[in-house]
């Protein structure tokens, strides 16, 4: 496996249009997605409307993130010093391989063969569970939705609701089939009532919480000035992981650092309203190093790069690193709503995934990564929804240009030839007028011959849509003939 393939898990699956093809055949998936995204979209609009200063908060969030990116080196060194002073240990990981190695060695040093995990997209990004399994260590996801995905040997489909693509009956079947293989089995008479499903998960997980010596978490934020690391969640399972085991290992993307503890004021308002449409998330856990006799007695913070400094180097693309993983952009995206998260082939799906993933792995390195910036109609709903004002549509076209430029030279593709041809035609009004006349004649001939079904690449249009027949006379010809110009 090449370096790029381990960078962001699952790249190497089909390109977006091919993956979308499969997702679009799945009617149940589309119904589940439509229901879930529509519900959360409406709730979110109401939650946001409650705040008079929402736009000011968005601006503040965006400005803080701008500052973090400008001085990332300073804040990271400050964070390292603060965490160390509070009794934690800081590790730096350049890529997935290094991060996985550090975690594995730390778990081995404790003699543990199982770990509990919570809230970490970064560890999904680097494929930590698989790396731990290779080392004989079983990792259990404790977020309910992530547990469902893990038990089903599935992939998350959503940042916030990883099992958004599964309904209750499917979840009951997964629990009945899989739980017993990994610990306390689900009761035989399990129904698909939410209360019953939650209870089965609670019993299954409780045993693991009480036994695990090592926990692994992600981080929503880390404050440079105090060394405080924070996780927000809804179920309390994270709180169990963060407080019960003797050793806590946190894997955090370097972009998650905030300058100061006071900045949490902004983000703890922006995040829950944007993600779960709640005024406040039920559990906010903040910890600073270690406290003797209280909570984990050993704390390791792994600062993960894995393509982030490369992303930072692109001034037009770096704001993808501002993302606070709220998933608001997924919930409003019409493309995501039809195709689901797995079509994006990365742990980061939806609009933000379409701009973040290609940058983390590098534009021009694979057909898959290169297909992602084109997986959007540029409708702009994501920009309006983003709590830190990431201009995703603008970044998509920026990355499209990088993809096109990466493939210039050599034998041009049909699209490149068409674009160059169009440029020549549009280069002069005279050439355009000639092309329009030829198009009108050709188009009408095709129309007469039943040209509503065109061959070749045009089939992608005429498969489901009629083509407009070019007008007999263009506007400019009409204008000229009418003696106006």
């Amino acid at each position, binding site marked *: 496996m090449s370096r790029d393939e381990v960078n962001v898990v699952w790249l190497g699956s089909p390109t977006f249009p091919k993956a979308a093809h499969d997702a679009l055949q799945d009617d149940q998936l589309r119904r589940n997605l439509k229901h879930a995204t529509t519900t959360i979209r409406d709730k979110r609009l109401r939650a946001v409307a409650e705040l008079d200063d929402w736009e000011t908060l968005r601006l503040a969030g965006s400005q803080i993130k701008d500052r973090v990116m400008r001085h990332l080196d300073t804040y990271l060194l400050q964070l390292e010093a603060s965490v160390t002073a509070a009794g934690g240990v800081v590790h730096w990981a350049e890529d997935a391989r290094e991060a996985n190695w550090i975690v594995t060695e730390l778990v081995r040093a404790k003699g543990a063969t199982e770990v509990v995990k919570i809230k970490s997209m970064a560890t999904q990004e680097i494929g930590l569970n698989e790396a731990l399994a290779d080392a004989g260590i079983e990792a259990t996801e404790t977020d309910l939705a992530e547990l469902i995905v893990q038990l089903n040997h599935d992939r998350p489909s959503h940042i916030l609701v990883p099992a958004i693509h599964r309904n209750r009956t499917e979840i009951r079947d997964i629990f009945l089939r899989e739980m017993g293989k990994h610990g306390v089995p689900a009761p035989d008479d399990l129904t698909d009532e939410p209360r019953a499903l939650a209870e089965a998960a609670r019993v299954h997980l409780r045993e693991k919480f009480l036994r695990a010596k090592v926990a692994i978490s992600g981080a929503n934020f880390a404050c440079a000035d105090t060394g405080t690391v924070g996780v927000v969640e809804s179920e309390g399972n994270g709180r169990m992981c963060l407080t019960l085991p003797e050793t806590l290992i946190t894997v955090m993307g370097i972009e998650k650092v905030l300058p100061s503890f006071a900045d949490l004021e902004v983000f703890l308002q922006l995040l829950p309203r944007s993600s779960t449409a709640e005024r406040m998330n039920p559990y906010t856990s903040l910890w600073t190093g270690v406290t003797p006799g209280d909570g984990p007695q050993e704390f390791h913070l792994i600062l993960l790069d894995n393509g982030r400094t490369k992303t930072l180097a692109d001034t037009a693309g770096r704001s993808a690193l501002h993302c606070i993983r709220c998933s608001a952009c997924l919930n409003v995206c019409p493309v995501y709503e*039809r195709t689901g998260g797995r079509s994006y082939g990365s742990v980061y799906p939806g609009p933000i995934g379409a701009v973040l993933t290609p940058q983390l792995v590098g534009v021009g390195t694979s057909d898959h990564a290169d297909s992602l910036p084109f997986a959007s109609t540029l*409708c702009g709903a994501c920009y309006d929804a983003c709590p830190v004002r990431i201009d995703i549509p603008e970044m998509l076209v920026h990355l499209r240009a990088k993809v096109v430029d990466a493939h210039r030279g050599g034998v041009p593709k049909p699209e*490149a030839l068409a*674009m160059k041809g169009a440029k020549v035609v549009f280069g002069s009004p005279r050439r*355009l007028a000639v092309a329009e006349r030829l198009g009108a004649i050709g188009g009408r001939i095709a129309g007469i011959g039943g040209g509503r079904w065109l061959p070749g690449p045009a089939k992608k*249009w005429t498969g489901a849509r009629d083509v407009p027949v070019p*007008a007999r006379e263009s506007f*400019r010809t009409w204008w000229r003939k009418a003696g106006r110009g």
Partner: protein
Amino acid sequence: MRIALFIACYNDALFPDTGKAVTAVLERLGHTVEFPMAQTCCGQMHYNTGYRREADSLVGAFNDAFRGYDAIVTPSGSCGGHVRHHHKTETAPNVYEFSEFLVDVLGVTDVGAYYPHRVTYHPTCHSLRMLRVGDKPLRLLRAVEGIELVELPEAESCCGFGGTFAMKNSETSVAMLQDKMGNVRKTGAQTLCASDNSCLMHIGGGLGRIKSGVRTLHLAEILAATR
């Protein structure tokens, strides 16, 4: 006020009636309009598909063609949005989408139109989110005599056109189109109206294929209609 028409390349070749309708409305309101013959294309298709070098070469020509006008009026929300956001030229700030120009610049909502049909309106994404035209097209439509304006469910959802997206990701595009068509048919409208022929070409192409009997019309054509 010197007003120039920016009729967008695809309107010029495929939908010349829209340009004629814009001309008719503005002349009915007592304005003289010009069509600078040197105009070709704003470069949006190139820009949005990643061919930025090719797009850039069209910006200077656009600026030359439209220099000296107080207002440059276009019936394409998406081309208008592209020029205003991405052309860093002296003419870019003077570009107005048709409904914006009528409401904001001319201060008119009733243009003396008559269209006695059941109509539903689709707010195209670039008009809505790039230009922020808001309810201006609806205010213009509400003032049309005889019209029965019905609300489109999930109006602000993208129709799935997205320029070259409609070809590159045609299956996803068509899935979005199907939902849009379903919502259009729920309204029982005879006419679907929008401020962008590119989206209408996509939705109309779909509605035509299923022989829905729903007609797609650009806002300007409804506003140009009289008794």
